[in-house]
């Protein structure tokens, strides 16, 4: 269509002044949420990795020390791997968000790229939470139909650690949902009215 030639700076500043306060507010929330995501991922990974426990279990009448480690279950291994990926992603995006604080014209492009990767990371974190949660639930309650015995009455420290880790990962996935909502809202508000 048509474009009118105008000097760039006054028009740009006059068009960006009404939206600058909202942009700054969203930007602060954006950085805070990304840092929260990094913290949640880090805590979840650390708590899960330090959950090893050895207990005396009766095996054919003799008490034998049996360990329970997170890497005995492929679900927990996937959980640690996925949360490590999300922790790395959140560091990168926090730094990227901080670096465009003084360059408003880069922010829109950055927001666009972030939304796609944010949704993918949401998928990864949510699937990791669901995976570990499913296995932990079977470990907690057992399943008599299939013959899987519960283990949490024996390995209480292991179950506490993995349960706490899964709760923190759930918080991380909620933070990612909020991030996507924030990016959607800030993109929506940047449409010139």
């Amino acid at each position: 269509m048509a474009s009118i030639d105008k000097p760039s700076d006054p028009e740009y500043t006059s068009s960006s002044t009404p939206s600058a306060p909202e942009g700054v507010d969203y930007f602060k929330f954006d950085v805070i949420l990304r840092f929260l995501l990094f913290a949640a991922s880090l805590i979840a990974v650390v708590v899960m990795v330090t959950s090893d426990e050895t207990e005396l279990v009766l095996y054919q009448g003799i008490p034998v020390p049996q360990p329970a480690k997170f890497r005995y279950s492929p679900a927990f291994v996937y959980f640690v791997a996925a949360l490590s990926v999300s922790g790395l992603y959140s560091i990168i995006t926090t730094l990227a968000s901080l670096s465009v604080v003084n360059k408003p014209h880069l922010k829109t492009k950055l927001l666009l790229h972030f939304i796609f990767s944010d949704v993918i990371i949401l998928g990864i974190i949510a699937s990791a939470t669901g995976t570990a949660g499913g296995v932990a639930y079977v470990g907690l309650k057992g399943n008599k139909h299939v013959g899987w015995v519960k283990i949490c009455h024996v390995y209480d420290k292991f179950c506490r650690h993995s349960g706490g880790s899964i709760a923190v990962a759930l918080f991380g996935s909620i933070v990612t949902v909020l991030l996507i909502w924030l990016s959607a809202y800030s993109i929506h508000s940047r449409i010139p009215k």
Partner: protein
Amino acid sequence: MNTLFVNRHKLCGVVTTMEEGQSKGSIINGMEGVESKGSREIMVAKPASSTGACDLVLRVLALLLTLVATIVLGVDKQTKVVSVQIVDTLPPFHVPVTAEWHYLSAFVYFVVANAIACAYAAISLLLSKVKGLGTLTSIVDTLMVALLFSCNGATTAIGVIGYQGNSHLQWNKVCNVFGKFCNQVAVSIVLSLLGSIVFLLLVVLKLHRRT
């Protein structure tokens, strides 16, 4: 003097405009009621049908995929006669054992989550003609992505345990006995995974169109 050129990508109505001299990189869809300030942005009069059609097709696809995933797992049931030898002197007992989907809570979660996603896809299809609900649809779409991915993960984990067992925790594998049951679970997981990817595309496309 700023020269403008337009690259129109026809994929689901995502239009990119690029301006020299100012790296704004913004994407605008003209049918959202956007008024151009007259200087920086290009207003593209795109018919809403091509962008809305892509959205509609994706929603129908999501509805179908989650519906089939729910049904495939919801009717999953297998009975097998297993011969159990208790004492050597007696002949082996033939015991019928059944595997049903609601014996495992992860599968219950899977069926419920896919049913919710299917119902939501149907409702959002009906409400897509109503203006002004785009933001709410995007918000709930994001929640659906999270829900579907988590139920996929839980069912996959339980399926892997059923398939391989877990020797450290003394959880025996089940799929050597109930082969058809496990195959149906696998098919259902794949369908739900495709459905969750469709929801992911819905979120991303709506947000790309909005800018």
